[in-house]
């Protein structure tokens, strides 16, 4: 689990609570059983697709792909929840890539847990696999988890959007930016 600390109740139920009516309807129409299972799993503090061990590995990968610096990273944005839900919804076709990838990752780590390696070692491992379909997929899913609407599980409290100064308000008035102020 992210940070290996016990998730707070608000964090566990975050995804469930934040479903908007329209997106819940969209998801339910497309993957009703999976979404119900995902909601239940989130309520229980667990994962739908990942085992806790797998989640720990992907969470650690995401934390290197979009690291925590002087600003929050993928761990704080709860990207792991996004990816877990993605793999039973829109990215279900990528399950095989992950399934195979866990083997590749273990091999690159010499049989050790990636999450347990020191940060410098983790970067070396990821650099050694960065051309693989597995790494590229986790990279893209991490980015999507940073910058998609929080209702999909990541971008917790709009952390990602704040970093790129993206305001998701529904309407704006000109001037929009610094240069079009008359």
């Amino acid at each position, binding site marked *: 689990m992210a940070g290996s600390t016990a998730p707070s109740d608000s964090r566990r139920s975050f995804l469930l609570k934040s479903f908007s009516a329209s997106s819940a309807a969209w998801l339910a129409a497309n993957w009703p059983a999976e979404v119900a299972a995902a909601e239940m799993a989130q309520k229980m503090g667990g994962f739908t697709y990942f085992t806790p061990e797998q989640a720990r590995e992907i969470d650690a990968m995401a934390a290197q792909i979009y690291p925590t610096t002087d600003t929050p990273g993928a761990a704080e944005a709860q990207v792991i929840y996004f990816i877990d839900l993605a793999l039973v919804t829109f990215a279900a076709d990528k399950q095989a890539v992950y399934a195979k990838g866990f083997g590749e990752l273990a091999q690159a780590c010499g049989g050790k847990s990636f999450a347990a390696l020191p940060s410098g070692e983790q970067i070396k491992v990821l650099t050694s696999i960065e051309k693989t379909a597995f790494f590229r997929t986790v990279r893209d899913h991490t980015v*999507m988890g*940073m*910058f998609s609407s929080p209702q999909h599980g990541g971008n917790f409290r709009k952390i990602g959007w704040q970093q790129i100064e993206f305001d998701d308000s529904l309407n704006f008035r000109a001037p929009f930016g610094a*240069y079009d102020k008359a």
Partner: protein
Amino acid sequence: MKKFKPSEEVDFVVIGSGAGGAVMAKQLAQAGFSVVVMEQGPWGAYGHEQDYNKDELINRFPSEEDMLMSDHAKQPNTFRRTAAEKAVAGHHSYGCVVGGGTVTYGASSWRHLPWEFNEASTFGTMAGTGIADWPISYDELEPFYTQAEWEIGISGPNVQNPNLAPMSKGYPMEPLPLKSSGFLFQRAAEKLNLSVVPNVAAIITKPWNGRAACINCGMCSGFGCQTKARSSSAVALLPYAVDTGNCEIRAHSYVREISTDASGKATGVVYFDKKNNNQEVFQKAKVVVLSANGTETPRLLLLSKSARFPHGLANSSGIVGKYLMTGNGGGASGLFTDPLNEYKGCVTGAAILDYVPNDVKGRGWYGGGRMTARGFTMPIAYGLGGVHGAPSWGKGYKQALIEQANRKLYVANFISQMPLETNTVDLDPDVKDAWGLPAMRITTQSHENDMKGVDFFIEKSVEILKAAGAHTVWADTARDSTGGAHARGTCRMGNDAKSSVVNKYHRAHDVPNLFIVDGSSLVTGGRNHPTMTISALAFRAAAHLVEAAKKGNVTI
């Protein structure tokens, strides 16, 4: 909505509900004719536009019913540079929903300039290209541009500029905000002695025909408009066709053939009723109007071959699908000190028009282009592929991503492309779509002249960004087109049946009751903003067709 039985012979069947088809449907239905519109895509949020999705992730991975663009999984296309190559999987896509590409387009709505209708006689031709004069002049089309602008709802500047087409009546409403990009363009323009013109857009800036003005929500190009401010065919045209009681729109209806009788007349269309187990249905019609876009239109003609039309319908000339123009782009990105917030509002605020005209002697290449600028509009797309000069993950990626996000401006250019006989849409010999029909194959390689144009605009973009105050600039690597939503030229218009597919009234030379009205009619491509011209051509085609049909003979 009026419903017709397929066995009932309607006056017109219109294939496609986008910029061309919707105008035809409305004008024909309002003139009292019975019309069935075939749309292969879904309804989208037609009539309940507030339900259009604004969520970028859902937009990237839509459910079948939410799709607004063509579905590569079911309708693959293939691509190759030249006829010597074997085509590989292609990425061409187009709007595929009731309203067609106008539901999601950026909505720039520039007129062609008068000389863009006779470039060959004005500037000469170029060996190995298909540059030719149109059979109609700007003056003949001008009243229909005006009609289209006022009926559809176009906002734009009423200014004098030699690189804007002369207008008999101004735009009906003020342009959209200039945005940071427009102001930065102005900074550069002052130094470089260029002129900046606010964008002309099919987005309304004041209440218009029961629709409310744009609220600058962002998530514009690529998304359906929740407030109906974008004047798409689905809100500005089709509802008026339906309101006559003479017009039925059939979504999920994928036409696989235009049928003909022994005399060579079109008798109707065969389509797959996707919502009814893909059952094949024949819709009988007196006249067929084909408006399926610059790539699907030639494909359908090639699919509609018969003993009488062994090379495809309306193809005695052999040039159906040839002279494809998809347009070229290329530009540069520059970093500024302060926030741009370009993701607010519609994608384009302003344009530099100084390089629209042809200047073969001055520049050493034939053609021109329109320069626009934009920042990031979608967070996920930006994160996945929008960061310059940085690794794709890790601390360096994150730092660059944050630094560039709201401070990077991209100069996007819309550049002319030569019509070449070797650039084609045809049927792939191997790949089939989910209905078993041959997939579309695109073969395109720009003339070396056009790549000089791309280089020119990349250079100009760098110059403009620097003059605007960018402290860091990245020039694009010149890339040739591989397809895209601006496909034109594949059923070109002309007076000679041997060298064109339709005549100046858009009637197929070979078929007395088949009209082809969309981007495929364009003889030359303008500066790669085709929609306003498609709309005007359709209003003009409809006016002639209505007049002829009322007299009882559409063979004009």
